[in-house]
C-alpha cells in the first residue's frame, strides 16, 4: 500500500545537538519552497502536489518513520495541512511538513499512501476543516454524520445554524441485509454503537464469514464533543485546563492536563518549579495506574465474559488510587489539578498521612499484581485465548502511528517519558517496558508491568517530596494573569499518556486564546490498527483485540 522500499533509513541531518535542517532541506532540494520556524521543529513548506514525493523521501532517506499527527487549519488567505513527523528511535528529531493549499479550492495530495496513519487524520481534516486530499483511498467524513453540511472548523461555517441529523436522514444500518459484494456467504453485522464490548459508543461495521471476521470498518464520531473548538474558545491561563480531563476519562486526566500544560508552557516560555514537577510526575503516574487498571479490568471483562472476579479486583485496587488522587486534587475524575507553571495546590496536610497512604498502596501493590498474574496471565485458558491472537507487527505499528502499550507490546521501544523527557522523569530510575509477542497477551503484560514501573516512579517521587526543604516548596511559577503568547507561534508537544503519545498543537495569534488547537489522540491512531489485527480472526478474538487496544472513545472522538 505504501511506496515503502526495504531500505535502512540513513542519518541525514542528524547531528550531536539535534537535527540539522539545512541538510534535510538539501535532501529535498527544490521541493522546499520556504522554511518556517515552529517552536518544536522547523516547518518545510512544500507544494500541494508533491506531498507523496517529499514525505516518502523523508521517510525512507531521512528516517522519519512516525507521522504523529496531521493538523489542518484555515488562514485568511489559504488552507494549510501540517504533517508532524518524528522518528520512533528518537522522537526529539522532529520535522513539520507544511502544505498550503488555495483558499477557493483547497486540495492537496494525500499522504495516506506513504503513512497509513494519515488516512484517518486526513479524513478528519476533510471532515472538520474541509480540505480535499487527492489520491486518498477513502475520503469520507469520519467524526460527523455523512449528511452534515459544511466543515465546522472552516471560517465560513455558520456556527449558529443548528443541524439535526435524524436516523432517517442518516444511513440506517438496519435497512438492508448488507453483504460483502464479492462473497454472498458472508453476513454483515453491526457491532455497536451499543454493544457490551465496544467500551463506549463505537460502531464496528463487521462482515462475518461464519464465525470469522472477513472485514471490519470502525465507525467513530458518536462521542464527538468539539473539544478542539471548545479549547479554541477558552483562554490559555485557566479556561482550557478543565477540558483535557474529559478526553481520556479512564482516570488518566492529569496526564492529559500535562499534555496541554507542556505545550502551552513551551509556547509561552514558562519555567515550572522543580517541586511542582515532582508532584506532577507523581500524580501523572498515579493516573497511569488507574488507567491501566481500568484497561486490565475491561480486557478481563472481554475475555472472561462477565463482570467477574478480575474486573472487580482491578476496580477495588483502582479505588485506592482514586482515593489518593481525591486527597491530592479534591476530585476523583475531572481533576483540573495542573496549572500553567505549576499545580493547583500543594500536597494535602497532614503530609505524613498522605505519604503513609501512598506507601501503603505501594506496599500492597506487589501482592495484588501477583494475584492478577495468578488469575489472568497464569491461567491456561487465558493464554489459549490471548497468546498469538490479534497480531500486530512492529511494521504495522509504525505505519499506523500506534504508540503507548500497543506499540511497546509489539516490541517498538517508544516512550516519550524517556525519549523526549519532560517533568522529572529523566532524574528518576525506571525502565521502559516492552514485550516482543506482538499479540493481545503482550499488550496486557506490558500494562501490568508498567503499573510496577509507575509504582517505582511514585515511590521515588514520594521520597523526594518528603525530604524537600519546607521553605522551598514552590508549586507555581510566576505567570501573568492573562497569557498572550507572541503571534504566529506554532508548537506541537506530546506527553506519554496512558494510551500513548498524546500531543497538542497550538498556533497563537497574539490574543489570549489559541487560534488553532489540535489534539493528537493516541487512541485515534491505535484504533486504526484494528482492521489489520482482526482480519480472518474469530469474533471473540476481535473483541479481545479491541479490548487490548484500550481505546477510550472520548479521546478517539474528542
Amino acid at each position, binding site marked *: 500500500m505504501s511506496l515503502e522500499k526495504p531500505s535502512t533509513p540513513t542519518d541525514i541531518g542528524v547531528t550531536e545537538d539535534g537535527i540539522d535542517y539545512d541538510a534535510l532541506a538539501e535532501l529535498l532540494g527544490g521541493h522546499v519552497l520556504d522554511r518556517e520556524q515552529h517552536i518544536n521543529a522547523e516547518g518545510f513548506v512544500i507544494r500541494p502536489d508533491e506531498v507523496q514525493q517529499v514525505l516518502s523521501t523523508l521517510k525512507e532517506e531521512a528516517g522519519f518513520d512516525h507521522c504523529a499527527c496531521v493538523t489542518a487549519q484555515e488562514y485568511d488567505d489559504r488552507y494549510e495541512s501540517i504533517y508532524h513527523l518524528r522518528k520512533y528511535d528518537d522522537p526529539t528529531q522532529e520535522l513539520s511538513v507544511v502544505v498550503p493549499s488555495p483558499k477557493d479550492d483547497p486540495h492537496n495530495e494525500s499522504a495516506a499512501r506513504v503513512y497509513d496513519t494519515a488516512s484517518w487524520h486526513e479524513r478528519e481534516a476533510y471532515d472538520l476543516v474541509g480540505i480535499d486530499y487527492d489520491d486518498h483511498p477513502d475520503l469520507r467524513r469520519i467524526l460527523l454524520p455523512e449528511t452534515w453540511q459544511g466543515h465546522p472548523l472552516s471560517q465560513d461555517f455558520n456556527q449558529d445554524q443548528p443541524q439535526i441529523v435524524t436516523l432517517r436522514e442518516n444511513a440506517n444500518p438496519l435497512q438492508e441485509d448488507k453483504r460483502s459484494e464479492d462473497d454472498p456467504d458472508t453476513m454483515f453485522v453491526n457491532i455497536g454503537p451499543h454493544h457490551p464490548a465496544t467500551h463506549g459508543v463505537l460502531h464496528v461495521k463487521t462482515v462475518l464469514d461464519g*464465525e470469522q471476521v472477513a472485514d471490519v470498518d470502525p465507525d467513530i464520531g458518536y462521542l464527538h464533543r468539539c473539544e478542539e473548538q471548545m479549547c479554541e474558545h477558552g483562554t490559555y491561563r485557566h479556561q482550557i485546563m478543565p477540558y483535557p480531563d474529559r478526553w481520556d476519562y479512564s482516570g488518566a486526566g492529569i496526564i492529559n492536563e500535562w499534555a496541554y500544560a507542556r505545550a502551552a508552557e513551551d509556547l509561552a516560555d514558562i519555567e515550572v518549579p522543580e517541586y511542582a514537577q515532582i508532584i506532577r510526575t507523581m500524580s501523572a503516574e498515579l493516573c497511569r495506574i488507574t488507567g491501566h487498571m481500568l484497561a486490565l479490568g475491561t480486557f478481563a*471483562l472481554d475475555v*472472561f*465474559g*462477565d463482570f*467477574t*472476579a478480575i474486573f472487580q479486583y482491578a476496580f477495588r485496587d483502582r479505588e485506592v488510587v482514586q482515593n489518593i488522587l481525591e486527597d491530592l486534587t479534591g476530585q476523583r475524575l475531572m481533576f483540573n489539578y495542573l496549572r500553567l507553571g505549576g499545580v493547583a495546590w500543594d500536597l494535602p496536610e497532614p503530609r505524613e498521612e498522605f505519604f503513609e497512604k501512598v506507601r501503603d498502596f505501594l506496599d500492597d501493590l506487589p501482592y495484588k499484581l501477583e494475584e492478577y498474574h495468578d488469575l489472568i496471565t497464569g491461567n491456561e485458558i487465558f493464554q489459549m*485465548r490471548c497468546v498469538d491472537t490479534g497480531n500486530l507487527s512492529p511494521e504495522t505499528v509504525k505505519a499506523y502511528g500506534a504508540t503507548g502499550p500497543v506499540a511497546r507490546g509489539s516490541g517498538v521501544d517508544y516512550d516519550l517519558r524517556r525519549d523526549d523527557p519532560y517533568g522529572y522523569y529523566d532524574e528518576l530510575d525506571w525502565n521502559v517496558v516492552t514485550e516482543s509477542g506482538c499479540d493481545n497477551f503482550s499488550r496486557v503484560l506490558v500494562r501490568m508491568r508498567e503499573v510496577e514501573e509507575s509504582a517505582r516512579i511514585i515511590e521515588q517521587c514520594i521520597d523526594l517530596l518528603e525530604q524537600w526543604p519546607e521553605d522551598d516548596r514552590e508549586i507555581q511559577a510566576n505567570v501573568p494573569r492573562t497569557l498572550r503568547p507572541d503571534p504566529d507561534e506554532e508548537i506541537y508537544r506530546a506527553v506519554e499518556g496512558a494510551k500513548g503519545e498524546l500531543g497538542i498543537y497550538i498556533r497563537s495569534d497574539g490574543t489570549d486564546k489559541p487560534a488553532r488547537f489540535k489534539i493528537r489522540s493516541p487512541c485515534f491512531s491505535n484504533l486504526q490498527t484494528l482492521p489489520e489485527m482482526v482480519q480472518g480472526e*474469530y469474533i471473540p478474538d476481535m*473483541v479481545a483485540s479491541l479490548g487490548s487496544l484500550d481505546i477510550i472513545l472520548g479521546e478517539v472522538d474528542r
Partner: protein
Amino acid sequence: MQSAPLPETLAELAGLNPDSTPVMIVMSLIGAALIGSLMMTNTALAGPWAKRKITAAFTDRIAVDRIGPFGLLIIAADSVRLLSKELIIPDGVDRPAWDLAPLLIASSALLGFAVIPMGSGLHLADPEVGLAYVFATASIASVGLVMAGYASNNKYSFLGGLRAVAQNVAYEIPLILTGASVVIFAGSLQMSEIVAAQSQTLVGPIPSWYAFVNPFAFVLFMIANLAEVGRNPFDIPEAPTEIVAGYQTEYSSVYFVLIYLGEFIHIFLGGAIIATIFLGGPAGPGPAALGIVWFLIKIWGVFLFTQWARSAVPRVRIDQLIEIGWKGMLVLSLANLLLTAVIVGVVA
C-alpha cells in the same frame, strides 16, 4: 433406601386405592406439582438472590442487602419487576416458534426431575430407562435454543443459536458416554438401582459413590456438564461481550424470565444428575428421612461450582470449544467407557 414412588405414598396418605388408574393420575399430578414447586423454589432462591450473593462473595462485593433479611425479599421485588416489564415483540419474528421457545426451554429441564430420587420419598417415577430419560429431556432444551435463535430475526441470536447447537452436540456425546460408564457399574439404567448400587462403603468411612470409585469419570462429567448448562468457560451461546446475549437477545419480560428460569433449572437438573449417579443421590449421615436435605446440599454444591467457574475462568473460543469437545472429551470419555467395561467384565 428403596421407597415407594411419590404418587403411591400420596394415595395411601389420602386413604385412596393406589391400584385405581384415575386416582393414580390425580396423585401423579399432585406429586409432579410438588416436585415442580420444590425445584422452582430452589430456582427462585438461586436466580435473583443466591447467584448475586455468591458472585458478590467471589468478587469482593456485598450484593443485595436492602430489602428483607440478607436481602431475601429481593426475590419478590424482582418477580414483580420482571413480570411488569413490557413484552417487546420485534418486527419479523417467527411467531409460534418465537413464543414456544421460552416455554420449551423452561419446561424441558423440569421434566427430568420426574425420575430423580430425591430421598425422603420424593421420587415421582422410577422407570427402567430412568437415566436415558433424563438425558433425553435435558436435550430438548437444545431445540428450544435453536428455535429462539432462529425465530428472533436477529443476527446475534442466530449466531447464538448456531453456537448452542454446535456446543451441545459436541458435549452431550461425552456426557452420555460418561454416564454410560456408570450404568456399566450399576448394571441398570434405573435411577433407584444406581443409587442403591452406591450405598456400600468403599474403604473405611468413604462410601462407594461413583465419584470415588471412578473420579476420572466424575471430572469428565462435571466438565461436560458445565458445557451442557452453558457456564464459563463454556458460556459461548450467550457470550455477552461477543454476541450481546446470543439466542435470548430479543426476549424481554416474561419470556426472558422463562429462559432465565430454564437455565437455572437446567443447572439444577445437571446437579441432580451428578448427585444421583456420582454422589450417591440422597445418601448421607443421619436417618433416611433427611435424604432430601442431603440431596439439596449436593445439587447446591454443583450450583456453587458452576458459579465459581463463572467468576474465575475465562471463556474459551468457539473453535477451541469444539476442539476440546471432539478431540479431547470425546476420546477421553470413550476410553473411560471402554476401560470401565473391561474392568467390570474382568472383575465381575
